Structures are given as C-alpha cells and as structure tokens.
C-alpha cells in the first residue's frame, strides 16, 4: 500500500526483555480489560513454565518462557508475544472486507462486525498473531487491539499499565531513541539490534534482548512491508483485464471479418457461376 505517512508519532511499545521478570501481570491485565475467558491449561505442557502455550481465541498476549544455560546455571529468558501493530500491516491489505484498520494513533484494530471469517489475515500475518474462534459455529478472528479504546482516551494499554518493569509506552520516535540510548549505555547487556525497527517494514512494538532474537523464539521476518509483495502483482489487474479483453475482442472481430468476407466471396462466385449457367 502506498501508505507514506510518518510513523514517528505512532503510539509504540518498547519491550525490554532483559527487564522482564516473567510475572505475567500483562497477561492478567489483558484478560481483565478485554474480558477474555480463562484457559484451562497444564503446566510443563510444552515449553517449561510457559502458560498458556500459545496465543489463542482467549489469549491476546502471552509471555513466552525460554530456558538456557549461562555459566553452568539454568536461566530464563522471556518475551511478550502480542500483535506487532505493523506500520504497513499485511492483515489490513489482505482483508477482503476491510475489517482491519491501521489507526492514525498506531494500533491496528479489527472490526468484528465486518469480518466474514475467511482467515486470510491468519495466513498473511508474518507474526502469526490473528487467532480464530474455532469453538464457535460462526467464528470470528481475535487479535490484540493495542487497547485502542484506552489509547483514544489518553490512557496507556492495559498490559503496559500493569507491567512493573519491562514495557515503556510512547511515541515511536521516543521509543526508538530510548532503545538506542539503552543499547549504547549498556552495550554488553543487549544484542545490538532493535527487533521491530525494520521487521515487516517497521512495527509499533519494539523489542530489546540479550539473546539473539531467533533463539528467544522471534520469527525471522522480511524487512519489506508485506502488502508491497501482493501489490506488485495486483496492480497489474486493470491492465491485464483491459489487455486480455481488448485483444480477444479485437481478434474475434478480425477473425469474424475474415470469415464474413470469405463467405461473401463464395456467395458472389456462386451467383456468378449460376448466372453463367443461365446465360446459354
């Protein structure tokens, strides 16, 4: 999409995973604010203490746990999985009924009243964020709204509000500056990279980490805004329609004309022949 707007003032999360203690108050706050059902889960059913195992129709954000060894000791690393609120979101571009909107404030929101349930957003999202209400007869998609209802009123999102240590919330430019400040102030503490700065064309959720991001469970994502990939093909649609329709119409006109002329000639010849026969 040709969204050439300036994203520096978008409301953005800066999530410093080195400061995360894994308390999961963000998960709880998210459930409470969005009135989501609890999930019945079992401990150690997958990746250690992580619970619930994945985002789902009832869980819009989750803390991912990762065990690793450091100086012979078992250590934990965490990262908060949530909607990345891309600058140029794939879900917005692929939705056939415009159910996703990138708001001017930054959050990408979803209009459940429009959704037809085709699940293209789930296929398209490079971060695997939109989830589906598989338990329902007429299911819809669920996804973190960046607490748009709160942000609009000048509040900060529920998870950011509840987080005691790791989440900073503010304009994208401020958050990038803050991240860079931390990276330069403590070069040994962080991987010198901000995840989300370039991913999928830039997102409104930025992460800092001490482990390489792929080891922490982050997906490797292209730096190109995803909608540009489909648009590269889709923009030819009107031209293809006109070329195909026009050329076929022209060819049919041509072939029919040739046919008609051939028939007329035959007819004239036949007439002439019959006149010759009549003459004597």
């Amino acid at each position, binding site marked *: *999409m040709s969204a050439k707007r300036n994203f520096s003032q978008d409301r953005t999360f800066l999530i410093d995973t080195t400061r995360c203690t894994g308390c999961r108050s963000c998960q709880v706050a998210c459930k409470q604010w969005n009135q989501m059902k609890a999930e019945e889960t079992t401990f150690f059913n997958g990746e250690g203490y992580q619970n619930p195992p*994945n*985002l*789902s129709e009832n869980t819009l954000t989750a803390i991912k746990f990762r065990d690793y060894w450091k100086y012979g000791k078992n250590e934990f690393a965490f990262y908060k999985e949530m909607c990345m609120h891309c600058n140029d979101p*794939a879900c*917005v*571009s*692929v*939705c*056939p*009924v*415009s*159910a996703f909107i990138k708001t001017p404030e930054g959050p990408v929101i979803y209009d459940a009243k*429009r*959704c*037809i*349930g*085709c*699940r*293209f957003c*789930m*296929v*398209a999202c*490079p971060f695997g964020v939109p*989830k*589906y*209400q*598989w*338990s*329902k*007869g*007429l*299911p*819809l*998609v669920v996804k973190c709204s960046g607490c748009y209802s709160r942000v609009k009123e000048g509040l900060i999102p529920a998870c950011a509000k509840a987080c005691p240590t790791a989440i900073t919330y503010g304009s994208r430019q401020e958050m990038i500056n803050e991240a860079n400040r931390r990276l330069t102030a403590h070069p040994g503490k962080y991987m010198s990279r901000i995840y989300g700065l370039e991913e999928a064309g830039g997102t409104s959720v930025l992460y800092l980490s001490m482990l390489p991001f792929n080891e922490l469970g982050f*997906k*490797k*994502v*292209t730096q190109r805004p*995803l*909608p540009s*990939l*489909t648009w*590269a*093909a*889709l923009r030819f*649609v009107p031209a*293809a*329609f006109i070329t*195909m*329709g026009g050329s*076929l*119409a022209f*060819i*049919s006109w041509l*072939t*029919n004309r*040739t*046919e008609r002329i051939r*028939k007329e000639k035959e007819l004239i010849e036949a007439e002439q022949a019959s006149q010759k026969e009549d003459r004597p």
Partner: protein
Amino acid sequence: MTAMKRIVLEIKGYHLFLRILIALVGAGFCAAIGRFAFGLGATTNLNDTYPWGLWISFDVVTSVPLAAGAFVLGAIVHCFHIKKLEPLVRPAIVTGFLGYSLVCLGLLLDLGQPQRGWHVFAYPNLHSPMFEVALCVMSYTTVALLEFLSPVCEKFGFHLPLRLLRTLELPLIVLGAAIATLHQSTIGTFFLIAVDKLHNLWYVPILPLLFWISAVFTGMCIIIIEAVMVHRYLNQPDETELLATLTRIIPWFLGIYLALKVYALFFLSERPLFDRPVLTALFAIEMVAGIIIPFIMFLQKRIRTDGVLQLRAAGLVVMFGLVLNRFNVSMFGMIQKNQQIYYPSLVESVVTIGIIAAHILFFALIARYFPIFEHHPEGVDYTIPDRFRKIKKSLVSEKA
C-alpha cells in the same frame, strides 16, 4: 402418478454409478450441515497453525483451474475461430459453470460468517487479492450461467431469450476469458503475502503468471479427459481427431510454463531451495511427472493423435502438474519445519468428495436432460446477428 413418485421412478432408472454419486452428494450435504451445527473447530482439523485446509486447497485453489476449460475453449473457438472444436464448447461450459458454482459453495462452507458474504460489496478493499477473487468468481459464475442458459432455453423452447443469448455469446466469451485471467492469476497472488511461510521452491514473484498459464493448459487437458469420458460412458462420438488440434496447442503452454518456472527458480527465488527432502521430492514429482513427461509426450505426433495416449498425457498434467502443484503451494509448501502435520478430518473429506461427486453427477444429469452435445452445423452463424428474428441464418437470408 404424483410428481414425487415419478422422480423416484426416474432415479431408479439411473445407472448404479449415478445412484452411488447421489449417495455421496447426500453424505456431503449432511457433513456440510454438521459443519454449521457444530462449528469449524469441532468438525475440521483446522487450527491456528493451519487456518486453511483441504477446503481452500482443493475446493477453491484447485477447483478453479480445473474449471478453466470453459474460458480457454471459448476463446479458442470463438475468438481464434477454430470452429471445428465447436462441439466441445458446450460440455466445457457446463463443466465450467458447475465447477464455479461448487467453488462458491465450498467457499461459503469455509467462511466463518457466510451470511455476511455481501460485505465484499459493502466494504471493498482493492488491495486484497481475496476481494478480487471473490468479485471475479461471482461475476464469472454469472457469465458461465448465462453461457449455460443456451441449452436450457433450447430445451424449453424459449426463443426470445435464446436470441438474446446468441447475440451476447461472443461478448460473454470475451468477458469470461478476461475475468478468468484475473482470478486464475490472483489465486497465485494469495500466496505472495505468505513470504517466509511458503517454501522457496514455490515462492516466486511470478507465481500469479505461473498460475494463469497452468490454468490454461489444464483447461485444455480437462477438455480432453472430459471428451474421452463422455465418449466412453455417455455414448458420444469419438473426438480424438478434434482433440488432436488441442494437443498441438498444449505443448506451447507447457513449454512456456517450464521455461518460466526454471527461470524463476534460478533467478527469482530465495535460497536454500533443496533443504527439505520431502518438499524436494514433491517438487520433483510435480515437475517431472506433471510437466516434463507430458510435454515430451505432447511433442510427438503419434501420441497427440492417439486417443488413449492423449488421455494419459492429459491425465498426468492434471493430476501432477496441476493438482499436486496447487496442493504444494497452498498446503505442503506452507508446512514449516518441525510443525505438526495437517490431515483433513472426516467431515472435510466427505464434503470434498461430495463436491466432486456433485460435479460428475450434475454433469451427467445435465447431459441427460439438456441438449449439450448438439453438434452445431457449419451453417449456424455465430457472428453478432444484425437482426433479431432468426436463430439460424442460412446464407440466403443473410444475403437478403
């Protein structure tokens, strides 16, 4: 005798194969009701990892090119004026119309909120490939219905609409071909957004073009298969000679497809290509059995003109070059390393089998009750008529 009794008697007269098909369609129908009663999660093996399964892979992504015969043959016969293929057009149109109707049905089953289908018109999103395909499939189904109405009107002797349809025939064929070009290719565009998900063997920027070309040659191969089946089981004349004309066009498209595919693989796709043995094997089967072998077969005159060998080559193209290709793109190639494997549930399979059975059944029934094999004599004029009075125009009346 009541109408019901008459219908029952009529059905009792059907061949056993048709009655089995009716049972399969019935089973599919029940399964479809089950999907709405119990929800997608309970009846299918779809989940957040596999939002799209058999219904999208087969009923939409694969069925659409399988129904491409109508637009391809329509263009060949009416636009390029290869009139001797005329007898094949009507059955192809019936196949196309049935195919697209069933695609719509499959899509409605797969949607979470099918009752909101009209939202596509209310809240259009021009940047969405799905929007474009939805619009095209709906309009093409309408066009195919109009094309299909000709034999229906002939059957019931509706003369006025028939004249109108004859007038519209050529514009409809052109319109249909243009619309089909759009959505056949745009189904490929679907998967361009799945960057880093679809494996490099299939993720190429020209995927839409490849989808369109493969739809064209598949359309022709389907016509061959259909003509042979109709000859064998519905007592229609052997069309091997006519089909030989088609088999001369097919290798061109197969060749272009092969060249583009190789070019794309070398110059346009990311690396690594051959890191997953299973996917490499699937890719190799698709290319060798589905494209290269039939390409070589169709290049030989002996095979082109032999009824049985024609059928075999066409069958290879359809089975491996198309069906396997579409499944590779929409299902197998999307599976990530170490991911659980998706397989369709009972309900999903029964619905899809029901849809395939419905296609064959309705084709056989339409062939039974409507004049779709009527061979138009050469004298029928298909140019846009300059007067509305006559359906058939003899040369004399044209002169006068």
